């Protein structure tokens, strides 16, 4: 396993483009997080301090940071599709196989890399949130801090699921740009199917079915936190209530998709003549 990870890391880290993209995908959410946590003084007119809003309180901070950090996953998605696209365009995939890598090992080396980077991203977000939380949060009891750390697990699973989808699209179309276009098409397709079902049956059923679609199920892992922030401000408004927690079945669906995407990528490579 380490051998395969090591192999892929060499391919990625010696390539300037992917190195820059990896750097951005880690550093950008960080910078945004840190910038948002400091007090910004707008030329003496007013000061903006997001910390005052209570969004950096434990346990809500886990929800907020993982939600915003996951918006930056697109940068690493580019890395994932290009690491497949490059192997095809340089024909190094063929050479790797001739040199004695099996097709299974090839897919696994990509998958391990995805897991590895998702893990690092999760750890970094966990550390950053933890320290910002310690600084701003009104409550720092251990029991409150560890509450809702399930969002970290959700973030980790969400990244693995999304990058596996990218890996599959990369294997399917062999070209990075087309693979990214496919992501967009899938997004539209999910909404079209949602529309058709709610037109033919009803909205409620359509919503339930849509929760099983790949992109929607990944999105569902970490629900938007805005409503929750509002809830803390206006606790008396009952109609703001919604279910934002991370559920085991949500994680299960995404892990299911991950397994399907990795397996399909492998099948695709196995069937293909290079």
């Amino acid at each position: 396993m380490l051998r395969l990870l090591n192999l892929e890391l060499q391919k990625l880290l010696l390539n300037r483009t992917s190195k820059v993209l990896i750097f951005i995908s880690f550093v950008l959410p960080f910078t945004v997080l840190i910038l948002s946590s400091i007090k910004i003084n707008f030329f003496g007119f007013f000061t903006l301090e997001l910390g005052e809003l209570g969004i950096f309180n434990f346990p809500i901070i886990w929800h907020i940071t993982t939600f915003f950090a996951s918006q930056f996953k697109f940068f690493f998605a580019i890395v994932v599709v290009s690491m497949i696209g490059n192997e095809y365009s340089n024909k190094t995939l063929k050479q790797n196989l001739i040199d004695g890598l099996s097709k299974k090992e090839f897919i696994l080396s990509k998958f391990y890399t995805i897991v590895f980077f998702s893990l690092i991203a999760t750890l970094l977000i966990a550390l950053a949130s933890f320290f910002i939380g310690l600084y701003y949060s009104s409550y720092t009891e251990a029991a409150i801090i560890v509450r809702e750390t399930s969002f970290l697990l959700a973030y980790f699973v969400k990244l693995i699921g999304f990058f596996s989808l990218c890996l599959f699209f990369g294997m399917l179309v062999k070209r990075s740009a087309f693979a990214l276009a496919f992501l967009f098409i899938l997004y539209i397709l999910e909404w079209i199917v949602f529309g058709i079902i709610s037109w033919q049956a009803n909205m409620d059923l359509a919503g339930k079915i849509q929760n099983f679609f790949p992109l929607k199920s990944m999105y569902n892992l970490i629900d938007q936190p805005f409503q929750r922030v509002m809830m803390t401000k206006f606790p008396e408004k009952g109609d703001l209530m919604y279910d934002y927690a991370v559920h085991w079945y949500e994680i299960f669906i995404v892990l299911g998709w991950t397994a399907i995407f990795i397996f399909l990528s492998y099948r695709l490579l196995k069937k293909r003549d290079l």
Partner: protein
Amino acid sequence: MEPILTINNLTKKFGFLTAVNDLSFTINKGNVYGILGPNGSGKSTTLGIVLNVVNKTSGNFKWFNGTVDTHDALKKVGAIIERPNFYPYMTAAQNLKLVCKIKGVDYAKIDEKLEVVNLLDRKDHKFSTYSLGMKQRLAIASALLNDPEILILDEPTNGLDPQGIHQIRQIIKEIANQGTTILLASHLLDEVEKVCSHVVVLRKGVKLYSGRVDEMISSHGFFELKCDKQEHLLEYLKSNPDFGTIKVENDLITAFLNEPMDAVTFNKLMFEKGMVLSHLVKRKESLEEQFLQLTDKL
């Protein structure tokens, strides 16, 4: 003899096209093999199948004694297919390091093999800056990294300039002299003739011949003759059942033998018949002539 690669009834179809048709042959240790065939005769497809990049339609093949998986067996094989494929953004040394990681070879081999192909001074230059000849030499270095039991080369001199071709041939010869088994696919016949002891001839995916180069067609060779009494000579040759086809080009007569006969006997015979030859050469068909004869038969 110890078999390295055994192919049995291998078939590959691309849709309606049959690229390889019921092909069987064995590669034994220590010989230098050539796979001959015109473009599109299934050479590269056959190599692709045994190298795990093309899926077979039917039949089977086994590496060594057949106890290891294909991808593990390939770790003991060195192969270059058509064009050298490396990561353009990595240096030569980094590319070879990657191959070492795949094959599980010690990094110390990198410099040693770069030395063999004369690229040691360029080892820290990016692959994308290399000329085609250098790329091809790097590919050979990469194929040699694991001191392979068999080296597979598919059109190794394709697209190279004369110096490049010469360098590659020189390297191949040196490797062959060290006793490494080589399988060379090419449509350049003089290339195969110079280095190979055995050939497999393919045409449209069908095997026409496999065996030693010098036994490729059951021919007894031919005489090239010149004589001042050309008419007499021709008349005699046509009446003698030992000779088959007779060709005349200007004053040069080429007479193909049906039965074995050496030049001394023939010369004596001519002298007895009162014909004095001004030119007598006994030759065997060159690989090119043999190859054309074989492939034209069908």
